[in-house]
């Protein structure tokens, strides 16, 4: 495994074009696009790109052919908003780089507003978490950062061992609510005040000593306001409504992360075309910011016309693979199945601005594909094969290797002598 990963990292595009070709025959193709589900369908991949989708496709170049035996084929799945590659062991702080936690003094608010912080610079694609997520069928994730009100930028990563975000895409993050009260003078009201002041400053910087942002920060925020979509962590209905006011006032684009009470604002979110990234398992009144948490959040938002994507809010990185179950639980609570699949494929790809590359099975898209034993939203299904940019990627992780080591028959020597 390690050898092939190194190749990915060094030469994802140039290396061995032949290995990026495959003809997958006779699959139940869940396109996560307008074509919906196609039975007994072939997918032709050349040069890492999907070139054709149809029945009984010819194999002109004599490409390697895989018979799917009618099993479901999906786009590589979205693993949620995570710290994959940014944390190895959650409680060992020397292995965690996800959040910028600068000290904040009485007048040191500037340190809570660092939109220029780019967490992708700490990304380690050799982390064991990548392969664990791939075994679960996950092929891309949004690196998140959550250290401050304006917490900085993440990026969308294909989980293939490469270092660069897909399409170079950076994603700016904002975080509202209880977790940031320590940075806003103990009131949520100041969170909106500070955001407004920062937005104003980025748009029309005024000279003087009362600046909130560094020069780089102003540039980064200005750039983000001009074209990027902010991912805003917020749960409470009242706070979501305040965020929507900012959206209107500054003409920025956002998506909501968490959104435990988003269903109560569903129509407004639909009207403002604000996608929501939510955890469908989040149904407890876990705080006073989510008294309205409901397992029907996804279904209600979808009915109102809001784009829904799924995240694992509890254990996002090590258990990114659980996003698949989370989507399934949303389906079991009223979300149409196709919307459930979209929530871990095309919807997040679109919300994150990488839908030209990933998130659906369409001609011209990257061949990031997963073959399953059954319904991909079922906990009783597992991934059996994965292709990333057309290259077959073994479903092997540190976990499967440990498993195999302890499953191996006793050979008279300690387990340490097993592979």
């Amino acid at each position, binding site marked *: 495994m390690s050898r092939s990963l190194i190749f990915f990292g060094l030469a994802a595009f140039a290396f061995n074009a032949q290995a990026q070709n495959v003809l997958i025959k006779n699959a139940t193709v869940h396109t996560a696009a307008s074509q919906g589900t196609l039975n007994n369908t072939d997918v032709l991949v050349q040069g890492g790109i999907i070139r054709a989708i149809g029945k009984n496709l010819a194999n002109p170049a004599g490409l390697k052919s895989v018979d799917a035996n009618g099993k479901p084929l999906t786009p590589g799945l979205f693993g949620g908003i995570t710290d994959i590659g940014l944390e*190895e*062991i*959650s*409680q*060992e702080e020397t292995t965690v780089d996800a959040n910028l936690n600068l000290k904040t003094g009485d007048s040191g608010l500037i340190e809570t507003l660092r939109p220029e912080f780019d967490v992708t610079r700490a990304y380690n694609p050799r982390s*064991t*978490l990548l392969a*664990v997520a791939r075994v679960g069928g996950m092929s891309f994730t949004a690196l998140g950062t959550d250290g401050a009100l304006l917490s900085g930028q993440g990026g969308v990563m294909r989980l293939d061992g490469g270092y660069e975000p897909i399409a170079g895409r950076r994603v700016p993050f904002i975080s509202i609510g209880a977790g940031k009260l320590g940075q806003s003078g103990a009131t949520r009201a100041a969170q909106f005040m500070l955001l407004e002041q920062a937005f104003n400053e980025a748009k029309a910087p005024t000279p003087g000593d009362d600046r909130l942002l560094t020069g780089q920060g102003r540039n980064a925020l200005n750039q983000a306001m001009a074209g990027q979509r902010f991912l805003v962590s917020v749960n409470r*209905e009242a706070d979501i409504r305040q965020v929507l006011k900012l959206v209107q006032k500054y003409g920025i684009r956002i998506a909501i992360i968490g959104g435990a*009470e988003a*269903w*109560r604002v569903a129509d407004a979110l639909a009207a403002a075309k604000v996608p929501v990234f939510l955890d469908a*398992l*989040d*149904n*407890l*009144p*876990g*705080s*006073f910011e989510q*008294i*309205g*948490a*409901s397992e*029907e959040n996804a279904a209600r938002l979808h009915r109102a016309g809001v784009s829904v994507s799924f995240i694992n809010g*509890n*254990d996002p*990185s*090590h*258990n990114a*693979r*659980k996003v698949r*179950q989370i989507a*399934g*639980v949303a*389906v*079991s609570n009223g979300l149409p199945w196709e919307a459930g699949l979209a929530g871990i494929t095309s919807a997040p790809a679109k919300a994150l601005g990488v839908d030209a590359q990933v998130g659906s099975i369409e001609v011209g898209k990257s061949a990031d594909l997963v073959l399953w*034993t059954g319904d991909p*939203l*079922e*906990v*009783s*299904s*597992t991934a059996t094969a994965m292709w990333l940019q057309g290259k077959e990627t073994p479903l092997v992780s540190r*976990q*499967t290797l*440990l*498993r*195999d080591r*302890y*499953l191996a028959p006793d050979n008279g020597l300690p*387990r340490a002598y097993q592979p």
Partner: protein
Amino acid sequence: MNKLTIAAAICAALCVLPAQARKKPEPSPVKPAPFASTYKAIASPPVLIQNATVLTGTGERLDNADVLMQDGKIQAVGKALSAPGNAKIINGTGKWVTPGIIDVHSHLGVYASPGIDATSDGNEATNAVTANVWAEHSVWPQDAGFAKALAGGVTSMQILPGSANLVGGRSVILKNVAATTYQAMKFPGAPHGIKMACGENPKRVYGEKGGPSTRMGNVAGYRAAFIGAEAYRRKWDAYEKGGRQGDAPDQDLANDTLAGVLRGDITVNIHCYRADEMAAMIDLSKEFDFQISSFHHGVEAYKVADLLAKEKICGALWADWWGFKLEAYDGIEENIALVDRAPGGCAVVHSDSGEGIQRLNQEAAKVMASSKRVNIDIAPEHAIRWLTSNAAKALRIDEQTGSLQTGKMADVVVWSGTPFSTYAKAEQVFIDGALLYDRNNKALQPRADFLIGQEGQP
């Protein structure tokens, strides 16, 4: 349980309680156990579930079978049962029926929703050994999580103190019934458990609070506690044996609990991740002659599955949690299956989570699916034991519940289909024969006081 522990347990049962009956002069009276259960089953007419797929919890699957509940007990399980005239009939066609789900590791009530400072009552993190505290005294019956767990088919659970301490205190086993007091939830006749913790948590919490700050400090801490408890136990046992004559020895709450462990009256639950630490705890149990009931979390249990089976210790485990600490770094998705397949192995799916407890059936399904990748096929009638009869065994309530056998508590779940699916729903949940949750009837869905009048509620 070894012989000495059994002898101690028998003595605890036979020597202590009937002491008043003995003809010795002026024995001190035996006080009733404090904080006793006031649980009362809710009355219900008989219920007959007909024509369902029944997983009995004993390893059997019965297709097109019936389950009859009467007077709070399982009356019969089989084909074409006849029901008393006043029985409520439930058409089970297409449905699956299982014993009520039992979670051996929950912090509902002690870390209640909303999770704020005021509800943080799970770790008495003031001393590394707090065998004196009882989790039940932290349980808030208005935790909205109880009702969500009920909607997931959970009928009984063990509420544990957290894992900050070497010895965290006593657990309590509750029936998942809505109540205003915890005593009214307390599982009648269930033993107390004790919670102990290995590894990183105690040393992290106490490293700068006087220790322990290392794993060797942890083990020294357990040993010191049990050395003291053993002397205490001897003193009290001699007093009891002597017919409670004269002044009773001083009572000490911590030693009461630890002596209860040594006598075999209290089940032992140890939060322990690493294989080598589990082996060390087994040696500790032999040094002080007690039986470990289950290792909780045991992310590396698969490495010592045979040892756990041999020592008759259950592994109460997650399907897929890993990596949040170094001691959880070696997690594999087949852990439960590997513990299960060791001859005599006892695997239990546990939650340790207000979210996970709602879907223990799906956690088991994940294990079944990942095991299949390595050609370990696990049938539903077998897997259901991980969350029913094995859990009951680990808590020592298997005489009362955990399987659909005549005479047991009628703790029963009717599922929309196979429980081992993302789409499975517990449709009806019976506790002691009473229908206390019905997915299709709002009037039979309990809601905590906390949620009343909250305008944001769904």
